[in-house]
């Protein structure tokens, strides 16, 4: 009897343990996720510099998605058309033999994760935008050169080309943006895309019940959106609201003939909004079906830029990167997107080149840097900050950890940004002697016996903090620790869960300014912006209710003037460019932040896949899906 009682107790204990494990996992889980580059690293790990822009740039793209069931849209064709998997596995070279045109009939693409939603105007994960870009088109679209080009609009409206106008000045300055729309664009159900679809998007976004934290432009900056005939939309801003990314404000078209009765509060409710289960867009590919294994798309024959060259595009969801590599090798996949790969796979991917898989790398919009907390006495001397920059061998870091696929960065703007100005920037090539001299000058003398630098009688120790569980950052910080210890600076490494590191002030290390050196990344948007990052009014503190993201606490009068002028007074590139050029020079000299490098986006495509053009931005490689051809 007794031992059965014991048994039962043991059982209960075990059962509780089984329960506890998931709970514990829950506690530790969040940070892991935020560090997994697969899970839209751009969105979660790396705080975005200018997410408004990003959000505004993406919305149109989407057409909503999919339940676990197939739609009735094209069942007959669907049954006949896509071949994938088994057929491809046994005869990988031939794939679908019954192709229509020059290329193969089906392109199969591997991605890491199921898109959480394919809803237009909804804050979308990167994996969602991959599919959305193929389903839906925008008024204007960013290409592989980081330039906006017209899609549904006839041209990109800019002040320079007369598409946008600025009247008045100062507080009375008023911006109006006019989009001329093509009249041959249709939604996948055959309805015409008109100005009403853009206005419907605006009405949705400005509705306070629409579930998104970021619709600032539409809720607070715009005065009105009106149509002028069916193919012209005019966006009028409130006076004094100089939105630097005004040219993409119109990327908000939704199929209003489907959604005009949907309650904005229930936009993501499959019972209220038919788009949740059956996205309808204007893009080259129509939505056929989605389940946790794959998203199936089929070409839209009436696509306004011409019938796509490949009949079917299938996204397969393969969460394990090693398994994905095997499937690329087996020829079951013709391409894989950026969310599925990390830079540490670079050599494995290169090894696949002999097997017909080509690796594409592009420097990303995400750039890694070290914020220096200027409240820390030893970091207040400019010479110390410059010494750190000279003393960190960034060239070796990019060559060894990032396989030479990116370059050291010397500004807070990435070289692909239009406002980046290289002229006049110090490159801070690795120079430990110079770093030592600068430290000597700053009074950080080397204690020869201990091999440690001493400042005001104390050995100098610095804490370098970053997120836990990110291999790239772990390797980078270890090299930095080594470099700085060569200079006689003791650096301790601290790895924090992302949920804590990026947590809310006043307790969080970054936002509460309780760190010494903090390594993390920003995602640079289309507009350089920068006011929130480096203007002295944006140093988060109790007094300003923790407004702003100037975590170093940088205060420089000329920098303040330039940022204010560039962000709030001027709107043309011509006038802003010299302001940013001067500001970058000051930044590069003062170094409140040590810029390290841009991350690398890696994707793969079969050798025979033409026009695979990954971008240096958050625009996924599907942006030009209608041009893809997979050679037989």
């Amino acid at each position, binding site marked *: 009897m007794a031992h*059965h009682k014991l048994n*039962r107790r043991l*059982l209960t204990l*075990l059962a509780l343990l*089984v*329960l506890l494990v998931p709970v514990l*996992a*829950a*506690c530790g*889980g*969040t*940070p892991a*996720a935020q560090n*997994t580059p697969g*899970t839209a690293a751009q969105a979660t790990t790396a*705080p*975005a510099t200018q*997410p*408004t822009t990003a*959000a505004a740039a993406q919305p149109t793209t989407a057409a909503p998605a999919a*339940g676990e069931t197939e739609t009735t849209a094209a069942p007959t064709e*669907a049954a006949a058309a*896509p*071949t994938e*998997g*088994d057929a491809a596995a*046994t005869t990988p070279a031939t794939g679908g033999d019954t192709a229509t045109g020059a290329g193969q009939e089906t392109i199969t693409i591997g991605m890491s994760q199921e898109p959480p*939603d394919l*809803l237009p105007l909804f804050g979308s994960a990167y994996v969602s935008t991959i599919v959305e870009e193929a389903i839906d088109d925008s008024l204007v679209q960013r290409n592989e050169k980081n330039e906006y080009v017209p899609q549904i609009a006839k041209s990109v409206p800019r002040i320079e080309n007369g598409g946008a106008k600025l009247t008045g000045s100062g507080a009375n300055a008023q911006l109006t943006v006019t989009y001329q729309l093509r009249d041959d664009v249709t939604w996948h159900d055959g309805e015409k895309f008109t100005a009403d679809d853009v206005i419907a998007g605006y009405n949705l976004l400005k509705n*306070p*019940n629409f*579930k*998104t*934290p*970021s619709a*600032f432009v539409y809720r607070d900056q715009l005065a009105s959106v009106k149509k002028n005939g069916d193919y012209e939309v005019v966006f009028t801003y409130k006076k004094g609201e100089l939105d630097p990314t005004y040219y993409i404000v119109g990327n908000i078209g939704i199929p209003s003939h489907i959604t005009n009765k949907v309650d904005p509060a229930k936009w*993501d409710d*499959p019972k209220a909004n038919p788009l*949740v289960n059956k996205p309808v867009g204007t893009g080259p590919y129509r939505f056929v079906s989605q*389940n*946790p*294994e*794959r998203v199936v798309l089929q070409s839209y024959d009436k696509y306004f830029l011409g019938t796509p060259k490949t009949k079917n595009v299938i996204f397969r969801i393969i*969460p*394990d990167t*090693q*398994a994905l590599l*095997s*499937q690329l*090798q*087996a020829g*079951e996949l013709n391409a894989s997107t950026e969310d599925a790969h990390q830079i540490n796979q670079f050599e494995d991917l290169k090894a696949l080149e002999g097997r017909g898989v080509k690796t594409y790398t592009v420097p990303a919009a995400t750039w890694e840097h070290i914020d220096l907390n200027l409240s820390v006495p030893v970091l207040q001397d400019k010479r110390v900050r410059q010494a750190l920059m000279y003393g960190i061998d960034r060239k070796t870091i990019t060559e060894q950890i990032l396989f030479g696929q990116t370059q050291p960065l010397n500004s807070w703007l990435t070289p692909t940004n239009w406002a980046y100005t290289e002229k006049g920037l110090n490159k801070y090539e690795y120079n430990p002697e110079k770093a030592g001299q600068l430290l000597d000058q700053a009074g950080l003398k080397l204690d020869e016996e201990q091999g440690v630098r001493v400042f005001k009688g104390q050995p100098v120790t610095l804490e370098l903090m970053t997120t836990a569980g990110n291999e790239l950052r772990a390797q980078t910080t270890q090299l930095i620790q080594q470099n700085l210890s060569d200079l006689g600076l003791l650096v301790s490494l601290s790895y924090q869960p992302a*949920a804590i590191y990026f*947590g*809310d002030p006043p307790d969080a290390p970054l936002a509460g300014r309780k760190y010494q050196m903090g390594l993390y990344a920003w995602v640079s948007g289309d507009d350089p912006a920068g006011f*929130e990052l480096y203007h002295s009014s*944006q140093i988060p503190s109790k007094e300003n209710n923790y*407004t*702003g*993201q100037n975590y170093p606490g940088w205060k420089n009068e000329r920098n303040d003037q330039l940022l204010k002028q560039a962000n709030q007074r001027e709107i043309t590139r011509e006038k802003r460019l010299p302001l940013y050029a001067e500001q970058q020079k000051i930044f590069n000299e003062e170094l409140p932040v040590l810029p390290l490098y841009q991350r690398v986006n890696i994707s793969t495509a079969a050798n025979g896949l033409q026009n695979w053009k990954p971008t240096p931005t958050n625009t996924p490689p599907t942006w030009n899906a209608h041009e893809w051809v997979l050679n037989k």
Partner: protein
Amino acid sequence: MQAYIIRRLFQSALLVLIISALVFFILNLAPGGPLSGLKFQISAREYSEASVQRYKELLGLDKPVYLRYFYWLGDMVRGDWGDSWTVSTGRPVLGLIMSRLPNTLTLMISATILSLVLGLLIGIVSAIKQYSIIDTAATVFSFVGISIPTFWFGLMMIVLFSVHFRILPAGGTADFGMENDIGNRIKHLIMPVAVLSLINVAGWSRYVRASLLNVMQQDYLRTARAKGLSGSKVITRHALRNALIPVITLMGLEIPILFGGAIVTETIFSWPGMGRLYFQSLVSSDYPLAQGLLFVTAVLVVLSNLLADIGYAIVDPRVRLS
């Protein structure tokens, strides 16, 4: 017996309630969540108290935790398990769970039946023919099986059968357009089931062997042999029945795992099951989904414990449930 079961059911219900509260509060106490890092995701000029407050209201996070727990519990009871936040935005949690459950059950039940049959067979043979070549081979196999990491074994199988020989698909539950083809589905099942079974067979056969050897040294078995029963009857009638008690314990614990899925195996073989859903819900702070899944697990653990206890009574008449 009936009274006992009824009493245990009541206790179980209470236990589930306590667990649900614990799960809810711990999950909501953990750092992270939909509002964490919001400051980094939307631009600074948009980040105002008002916009955060409005977002909180839309997500229902503006009320205190204890109130939210009661709302959640009330909705649960009425069959509304809430909507997913991030894994599959806007979709009902219950629907999501039900869409993954068949995949997981197919995989796990196949693997469990196979492991049970093989585990019992190997265990019995090893015990009867202790220290024979078969027993030694089984022992070696078990240690190898327990030692091989799942992810490595799974990847090796993919490399061998999908990349090199190209006879088995590398992942998924079925090829596109062939979802109703049983043959195609079975082909997809082979590797994940093999991986899952390897570990189970290795473990279970050891349990059965040890337990059977222990029973075979008991006096009553000598008595059974002495009264002239044949060797096979002694084993099946007397020894095996007693040897099964610890195996039932194991099986009881196996039920929640059956429904919970196997995260690693599901991930490697791109198998859209409960394990992956659960993992995704945790890493992306999808609390409604995680709560729903944890609740299901809690109910299953409690129920399977009850079943295991009742199972004892059936195989072991010495156990009196009173």
